[in-house]
């Protein structure tokens, strides 16, 4: 092999740099779920909490398409309860603490949805 020394040193440096996040975080605490503040007065969300936690973004997309394109603005949940489809008027009515509910988890997971450039949070204009 030509320039074996340089190539091997380079490959080792690359391997160390590439895997550095793994080594730097080795043995550290696991990811902790952020302590979101749940609504005080309401116990039941539109769907079970596991589903909402994993799929709320997909559900919101379906809500948007059904309400805007098909004029179907009522969601009948798996438990048979009816909900008016509206992020601003249904979701945020209970989840009225934007900073301690939506934002807290989004920041912890490095996602930055731009819902609030149009939809108005309970705090009003951001």
């Amino acid at each position, binding site marked *: 092999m030509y320039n074996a020394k340089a190539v091997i040193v380079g490959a080792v440096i690359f391997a160390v740099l590439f895997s550095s996040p793994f080594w730097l975080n080795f043995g550290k605490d696991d990811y902790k779920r952020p302590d979101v503040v749940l609504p005080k007065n309401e116990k039941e969300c539109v769907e079970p909490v596991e589903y909402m936690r994993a799929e709320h973004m997909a*559900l919101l997309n379906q809500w948007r398409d059904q309400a805007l394109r098909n004029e179907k603005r009522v969601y009948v949940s798996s438990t048979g309860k009816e909900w008016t489809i509206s992020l601003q008027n249904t979701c945020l009515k209970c989840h009225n603490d934007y900073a301690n509910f939506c934002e807290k988890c989004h920041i912890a997971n490095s996602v930055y949805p731009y819902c609030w450039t149009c939809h108005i949070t309970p705090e009003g204009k951001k």
Partner: protein
Amino acid sequence: MNKSRRSFLKVAGLSAFALSSGVAALSSTAQAAATMPGSSYKMGAAALKAKRWAMVIDTRAFKGPEDYQPLIDACHKAHNVPTIKGSNQNIKWFWLDKFDHAFPDDINAYQAAGIKERMFPLLCNHCTNPPCVRVCPTQATYQMHDGIVAMDYHRCIGCRFCMAGCPYGARSFNFMDPRKHLPKEMPNPTFPTRMIGVVEKCTFCAERLAVGQMPACVEAAGGRILFGDLDDPNSDVRHALAENYSIRRKPNLGTQPGVYYLI
């Protein structure tokens, strides 16, 4: 091993089919997982329904531009529409213009002064053949089954093809963040605003029809604007059209506007 061209193609075709059907099956299971089993969607019980929504504006009943101001205010308040004064970047859902500009097919130098000087209310015509829907590359604007030409701002990429396509100037582009021109307390906190870079227009108040209310301008007009089902021969709008002479904007374009003017 000596493979013939024929057997090679057979194996290649089979593997391509197996791979693609596997991928398709995977993606369909992923889609199914996102929907909660047992859930469904339906229309609200109070929703007003029609086959073809249309509006008839009795311009004879309005004395001057000041008569239209409450209608404009009601519309812009209901939808958080900003007013950007002294700028060609204003947002308009419901606005006024002179006869020559509103109905340029019918220019007549000797028009009666009452028509010539009168201001006419203009809004999206919710055409039967909407050019804006044809040119939208993302289907952000679309025609609903009840004739309303609606918009999904989530999908709008701000290309402004629809503005070029619309012959009525009914669409406005958000050149800047509209919230900068709205008061701190939103005029209607139950309705969203728009963001920079999307196009917006009148929606025939689809969100109000869904809860059994008439459009904001119709409500504010107190009977001088009729709104109803053009497909129903017994509706108010059909009676008004049957009994009065009505015109529409730029009829020769074939867009079939849904807004009629009694003059």
